[in-house]
């Protein structure tokens, strides 16, 4: 295992010395999938009406939701290992940082008593509950706040089931502080206007069919002064590192996905959806276009930009 990993590393490096282009990634599995599902042929860069991206393919919008669903249903149980591969093993640290930095919870010792107790947090695409549990832990142990609550929303019932299962290992299962709902981020009808203090989405937004619509929904449900916070894979800013990382993610991850989960297609999709996601500045502009104020330059790069945290504040 050790030996083969070294070898893999060498190959990756060797590859990055050569030409880096998208061409080699039009891999066998993609063409098979394309043939099977008869997606309309790619029309990049301009999308034809009613089509969207599924990884590097262009598919009918109605199909995307369904196919994203299939991807996450099939990776739900091996989900953690996937995140480990994509983030070179550091997504846990990013999530810790993400939560610590948001500092959820209202500290009764330093906050003057006023009407509202605790924060109302909505964790979108929260699937496995990873972010939600961290939020509640932070609120309870750091801010001595036993009222802050989190609603975990995900479009995929399999991911929610996984989350509920994991919740049983925490003190929050079956308490009013933790709730799971099945919902599409683009249509949060069950959440009233101006009701949320903090909206989080970690490694989810790149899967949404209409990111702008989701941002508008976020704006609607947030209270004035409420915060939108997004942790997502992003664009690596060091060119050499980028080349290496691209080789890693495109070359190795689908392969590993096949070996570990027996599911190359789903992992291929995940890699491609990351490459498709807008750059840090583009996404910052999208957040501003939805009406948010952004702190400072609007985002924080993590590990050279492999991931980034974007934030927006709804004006009061």
């Amino acid at each position, binding site marked *: 295992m050790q030996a083969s990993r070294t070898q893999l590393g060498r190959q990756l490096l060797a590859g990055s010395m050569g030409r880096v282009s998208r061409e080699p990634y039009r891999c066998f599995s993609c063409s098979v999938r394309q043939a099977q599902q008869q997606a309309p042929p790619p029309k990049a860069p301009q999308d034809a009406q009613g089509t969207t991206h599924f990884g590097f393919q262009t598919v009918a919008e109605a199909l995307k939701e369904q196919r994203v669903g299939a991807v996450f249903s099939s990776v739900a149980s091996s989900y953690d290992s996937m995140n480990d591969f994509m983030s070179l093993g550091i997504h846990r640290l990013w999530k810790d940082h993400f939560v610590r*930095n*948001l*500092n*959820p919870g*209202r500290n009764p010792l*330093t*906050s*003057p008593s*006023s009407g509202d107790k605790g*924060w109302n947090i909505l964790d979108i695409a929260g699937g496995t509950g990873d972010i939600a549990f961290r939020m509640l832990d932070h609120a309870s142990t750091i801010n001595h706040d036993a009222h802050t609550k989190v609603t975990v929303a995900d479009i995929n019932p399999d991911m929610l089931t996984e989350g509920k299962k994991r919740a049983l290992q925490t003190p929050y299962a079956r308490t009013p502080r933790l709730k799971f709902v099945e919902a599409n981020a683009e249509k949060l009808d069950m959440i009233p206007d101006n009701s949320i*203090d*903090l909206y989080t989405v970690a490694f989810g937004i790149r899967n949404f069919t209409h990111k702008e619509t989701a941002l508008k929904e976020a704006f609607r449900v947030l*209270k*004035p*002064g*409420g*915060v939108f*916070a997004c942790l997502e894979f992003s664009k690596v800013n060091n060119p050499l590192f980028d080349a290496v990382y691209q080789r890693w993610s495109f070359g190795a991850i689908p392969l590993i996905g096949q070996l570990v989960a027996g599911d190359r297609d789903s992992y291929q999709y995940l890699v491609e959806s990351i490459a498709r996601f807008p750059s840090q500045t583009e996404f910052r502009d999208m957040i501003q276009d939805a009406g948010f*104020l952004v*702190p*400072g330059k609007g985002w*924080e790069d993590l590990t050279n930009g492999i991931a980034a945290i974007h*934030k927006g*504040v709804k*004006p*009061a």
Partner: protein
Amino acid sequence: MAPVRLSNSLLGTFRAASIRPANAWRQKCLYHSYDYTESPPFPPAESAILSSAYNHVPSHGFTIDALKLGTRDAGYLDVSTNLFPRGAFDLVSYHLVTQRLALKDNVQFPGDGEQGKRMGVGAKALAIMAQPTYIPASLVELAKLADEIWFLAGDQSVDSSWYTKRASLSTIYSATEVFMTQDKSANFTETEQFLDSRLEDLMKIGRFMGALGEWGNYTGHSTINVLRSKGMRI
């Protein structure tokens, strides 16, 4: 250039701080008073929150708590402090900028005591400023402040002493601020004396270069003290 005048303008900044924090750039703000305009360093929402938070500094210090109270006063939520990526340092930075911008309005009329409210937070703010990430930004702000003080004191030198004077003034500024936090005398007369003698030293011996190191020393010590007060064993 009279030390008296310099001393007045320097002491003016300590008092200015507590007089009209936000007015300074709500009016037309001028750098060097008449040279050119400077755009406000914080966007409107941030300014509104920081100026409310500033009112809580005397009782809460330069802390995230002061910032939270400020967000609430300005009609925002606790969570809105996420608007400030640098947290409490943005409050410190606001403090420095405000003092510099308020300086020209106050230098001719150094507060007569009735408004000279003590900030009592210097050490904490300096400790924040001395955190490695913030040192560059702190130095820039301190340098600008020192620049304005020298300018108002009538110094227009263009030789190499331009730099050293500013470095030494920043040092004295920091030192005085630390001193002021301990000063219990009426009307801060001891601070004034301390300041005068520091300025005299500066004029007499002109040990300009060593002064920068001293600033590091002061802030370094106050950092350690703050950390100790939080129970860290150093």
